């Protein structure tokens, strides 16, 4: 039985990594939001499986919280935002996608090496997935660097938070509940503030392209 669960968890972890790569190469804002929601769903389901297999009941709450926040609320806000901002069909011109993917693969290798000594010490059923968690954090980071528009950058930021959440689940069966609630609150408030911010940026620059925002330089 544990073996089956272990394999299921690995399967979902693999899906998570796949989504991270898909996000890295996705140029359309709308699809990016859908991918983000899908990532949240995978995260939530895999957390629930971990909760079931390890009988860690507080993880059910985490799974429910993830489902509510990252699958329903945040994508909903993002959808509304892009509709109101008229960037729904935006396609981003990106710097060489194959190169980005190759850099991404290198990051995955690096993440697995970094995680190896830690996952050996972990006593959780999910210890093998810590490398994937770190890889998805790094891939989201790469995504933020390669994007020049505001909305994709923010989605990268949120995806990074997903990766961190996954890391917490795989290494330690999740953080204490009070901390998780606090983090969720921060993410939610942050999203609202970013929403306000998008409107301010567009009002001032007439676009959400961050290329206009390169005036402040270190001299």
């Amino acid at each position, binding site marked *: 039985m544990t073996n089956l669960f272990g394999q299921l968890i690995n399967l979902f972890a693999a899906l998570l990594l796949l989504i991270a790569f898909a996000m890295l190469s996705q140029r359309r804002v709308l699809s990016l939001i859908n991918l983000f929601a899908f990532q949240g769903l995978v995260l939530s389901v895999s957390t629930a499986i971990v909760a079931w297999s390890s009988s*860690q009941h507080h993880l059910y709450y985490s799974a429910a919280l993830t489902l509510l926040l990252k699958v329903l609320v945040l994508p909903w806000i993002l959808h509304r935002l892009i509709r109101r901002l008229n960037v729904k069909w935006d396609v981003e011109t990106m710097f060489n996608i194959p190169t980005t993917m190759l850099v991404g693969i290198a990051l995955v290798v690096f993440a697995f090496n*970094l995680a190896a*000594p*830690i996952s050996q*010490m*972990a*006593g959780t059923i999910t210890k093998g997935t810590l490398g994937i968690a770190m890889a998805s*954090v790094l891939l989201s*980071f790469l995504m*933020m660097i390669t994007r020049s528009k*505001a909305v994709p*950058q923010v989605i990268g*930021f949120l995806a*990074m*938070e997903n990766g*961190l959440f996954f*890391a*917490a689940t795989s*290494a*330690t*069966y999740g*953080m*204490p*509940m*009070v*901390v998780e609630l*606090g*983090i969720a*609150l*921060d993410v939610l*408030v*942050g999203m609202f*503030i*970013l929403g*306000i*911010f998008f409107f*301010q*940026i567009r*009002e*001032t*620059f007439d676009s959400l392209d*961050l290329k*206009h*925002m*390169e*005036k*402040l330089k*270190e*001299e």
Partner: protein
Amino acid sequence: MEILWTLAIPLIGGLLLALFGGRRFAPELNSAMSLGTFVAAAALTVRVITDGPITALNEQFFVDSFNVFLVALTALVGLTTSLFSRPYMRIEQHHGKLSVNMLRLYHSMYQLFTFTMLLALLTNNLGIMWVAMEAATLTTVLLVSLYRTPASLEAAWKYFILCGVGIAQALFGTILVYFAAEKLLGAGGNALLWTHLDSVKAHLEPTVLSLAFVFLLVGYGTKVGLAPLHNWLPDAHAEGPTPVSAVLSGLLLNVALYAVMRSKVLVDGALGSHFAGDLMMGFGLLSVVMAAFFLSRQKDVKRMFAYSSIEHMGLMTFAFGMGGPVATFAGMLHMTVHSLTKSAIFFAVGHATQKAGTQLMENIRGLIKTSPTIGWGLVIGSLAILGMPPFGVFASEFMIITTAMHTYPWTTPFLLTALGVAFAAIFSRVQTMVFGETVGQRLPHPPALVPVFVHLGLVLLLGLYIPPYLAVWYRQAAALIG
């Protein structure tokens, strides 16, 4: 009980000002809430000094002599900045830069920012500390973009993204600490309580903790403004309203460094080596040197003093990294005097830029002639921050450099060169700003200069004479964090 009041007053203040923050009496209400916070923090300080460390609410909050001095400092600078912001924001409104809604946002966020700072300091839970640090970014990001100018929006975006990414690293570090602690303390909330971690620190897994510290230092270090992660800092300081620059420099950077120090104690306990200290010394020294050279190339007065903050934060990080009683004592003294001096400078600079109508230093002239108090405030503040005796900054810098000469002699030339370059840069700029002829306009409201001279008076006092109880207090704290 005092802990609850210290946290409740700014939180209530934030909510009240969200409703009434645009009214005519809002600046006074803001100051009154900050005064309340200060009184509660003072009561807490007195209690901790007489009774020793205390915990409250199932150990969720914890105060010892290390964080209580930062609580007192935070509440004090919060109070004086709110006093300064009364006329400052009225003048800004008079100049047509702010609407009523913007003022409401400003006042509410000011109180909530104080709340998050105090929460980060008082909480015993490393996870909650992270949450509070992130919340501090969130409360200030809309303040940096308050004027809605292209430059301020860019600065706020950079601030949000860089600090957000940085603090995400710190979250990973916290997860790793929890991972190591959970094995000894069991799963659940207690494994992240600092007091519990401190009691078992010698048994924490060293490899995990050293990796965790790298992430924590990079994460919180971004907020401290350590080079090369400092990019957000000059922009956020230059583009936001001046009271925000004052609290960012005077408070936020300190609290972020506090978070690094709490982690360092655990890592030192687990590793028994100087690994954490070496990393901090490296980052600190790099920040000092880099900031000093960037300082001399600035044209904007607030940017220049922002780089000076990076330099001083680097110096403190370096001092804490060296460790030992003298350097740690000096680091804490430097934290105190830097906060007081830098916020005083920002107060004076704020009014000076309002008079000149620009932040470009070449257009600010003859402050002493038109408004002697602002001019002298700026001169005295700059001399103090540059480490001239008899101010407190001299005392702490002297202790840091002499310790460095004894234990790490190779760092001395770097430190002295950097301090010299910074001196030349700031002093010559300030000189041209305060002397000479001027065309400045009169301010529509009398400026608030009492906070400037109160701060500088305290810095002078700390340079001439550190009261014995304060010295005992610093020494206790230094013993705690080694």
